[in-house]
């Protein structure tokens, strides 16, 4: 869901108010619409996330016990990895240790694809990382269960899965954070150790360009259609 655009900023503020209104009602149910930014291109996203573990939330799941365990193991691998990506081979090698009903490797592949379809994981060249929606929902869980392995962005202090890191001092930054910090800076330097920043500086996300690209693409069919 992206914010709708008309000329002027008033519409964007209305969206914030709109979402705040909704959130105030959802608070009692421990559900919230969170705003985040995708780690790869800096696009703003809104996601409806669940905030609490209750007896109800434990029951209402789309996935079986072994599938959830697979997701948890994949999550661990992704957090422990250097690049924020876990290879499918490594994930599949853990299939034997899963809780619940025994899962074959082939089934596990399909389950991983299911996760990609439901936008929990993102696949890139055989490697998996967390979808931004999953980061928004699981941030609390990740900070609680993997406090030492968690990587944090030096600029925004938010949870970091993918990003660029300084070779000398080891600090990491999100790609959109890097884009904003080094915007129109011909000599990018690490904010911590002042060494030359060795990586390519990505471009700041531009919603206008995105819209133009979207118009040229064919329209996606809406999920709810009342008429043919």
């Amino acid at each position: 869901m992206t914010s709708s655009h008309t000329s002027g900023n008033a519409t964007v503020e209305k969206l914030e108010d709109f979402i705040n209104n909704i959130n105030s009602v959802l608070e009692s149910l421990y559900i919230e619409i969170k705003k985040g930014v995708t780690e790869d291109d800096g696009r703003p996203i809104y996601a409806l996330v669940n905030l609490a573990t209750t007896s109800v939330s434990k029951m209402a799941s789309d996935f079986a016990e072994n599938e959830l365990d697979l997701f948890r193991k994949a999550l661990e691998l992704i957090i422990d990895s250097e690049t924020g990506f876990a290879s499918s081979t490594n994930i599949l090698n853990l299939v034997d240790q899963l809780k619940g009903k025994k899962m074959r490797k082939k089934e596990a592949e399909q389950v991983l694809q299911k996760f990609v379809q439901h936008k929990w994981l993102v696949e890139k060249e055989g490697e998996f990382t967390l979808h931004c929606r999953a980061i928004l929902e699981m941030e609390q869980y990740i900070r609680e269960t993997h406090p030492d392995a968690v990587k944090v962005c030096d600029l925004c202090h938010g949870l970091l899965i993918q990003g660029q890191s300084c070779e000398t001092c080891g600090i990491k930054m999100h790609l959109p954070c890097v884009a904003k910090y080094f915007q129109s800076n011909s000599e990018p330097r690490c904010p911590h150790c002042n060494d030359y920043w060795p990586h390519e500086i990505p471009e700041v996300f531009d919603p206008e360009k995105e819209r133009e690209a979207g118009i040229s693409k064919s329209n996606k069919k809406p999920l709810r259609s009342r008429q043919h």
Partner: protein
Amino acid sequence: MGIRPPVQLTPSVSAVVGSVAKAVSWASAVADMSDEKDFLKGGVEKEEEPGVSFTGSAASVKQAEEEREPIKVEVALGADGCSDDLGCGDAGITPDLLGLAADEEKCRNIRKQYWQLIYNVQQNRDDIVNTASDSLTEALEEANVLFDGVSRTREAALDAQFLVLASDLGKEKAKQLNSNTSFFNQVAFCDFLFLFVGLNWMEDDEQDELSGCDDNVPLSFWETVQKEASSWMLRAETFHFIFGSFKSEPSAPKHRLDHQKKVHKMEENGDMPTKLRKVDLNSNQEATEKEVERILGLLQMYFRKYPDTPVSYFEFVIDPNSFSRTVENIFYVSFIIRDGFARIRLDQDRLPILEPININQMGEGNDPSSHGRKQGVISLSLEDWKNIVAAFEISEAMITNSY
């Protein structure tokens, strides 16, 4: 309603009159019950008719009183309604009585027909109610026709009885009709669904057709149905989440530490193989260089021992005990020549000899590049090697082994 009797009557006659009056009022009441115009007409007619018959019967009663008793009885019976066992062939029958008799014959007929009709309808009751036929309407029309001939209350009463029966049946039919409108025919709906989706399997003779279809047929069936159905329903998306579906384990941190240690170990192990590899690679090259240096050392030692005597190439290089060593020696000597530490040239016998090059000479710009690139290829087969060993009488190798 009351009818004033036109003549003074005896008590018996008055009883008859009373019963007739009762019958008339009852007939009119029946007329009120029915909605049909015909029946009302009949009712109106009945009002008149009894009057006629009444006067007729009254007259006959008077006559009977004057004449004989039996006739009175007969007339009484006749006043109530035609009796079947009325003997009309009695003496002293007036033309009125004859008319009465003819009427009674007709009435008997009518009554007979009514009874037949009622019996038929009762027998076919189930049929009439359950089937969508017009048999009830037909029976009603028949009764209508019959009623045109009705002149006495007795027949009218029969007609009323038939009407009651008919209206009962009608009510039952109506009840059935109501339940039929809300009746859902599942089989018909299924057939229509298949038609909608495009699977014309009503035409197929084989009943197993559907079980033989592949998975795509049911999938496409449900997709088509879903497309149509979802446009008629408003549905909010269900809420999908993962957080909260499983407990966050406190044992996970411990797990993590082990993991980290393992990771470090892995890295250390990772270092070692690479180091070894480097050593290996170096050792290969180093081995060659070492050998070359060793052989150069040997050559120079020889030259120091025997100055100004160049050594025969073959004598230097060949190992009479091993062909492969010979080849290696040739290889190493070629390095020495390439690097400019020695020179190979042909002597007066056209045999190759090795001459050392002094370091001084090297420094004077006698570097290999100024000589130009001169390349020579020495090929030595097993036969050649054996022949050379024999020809030169080489008994032991000049280049001794280091291992």
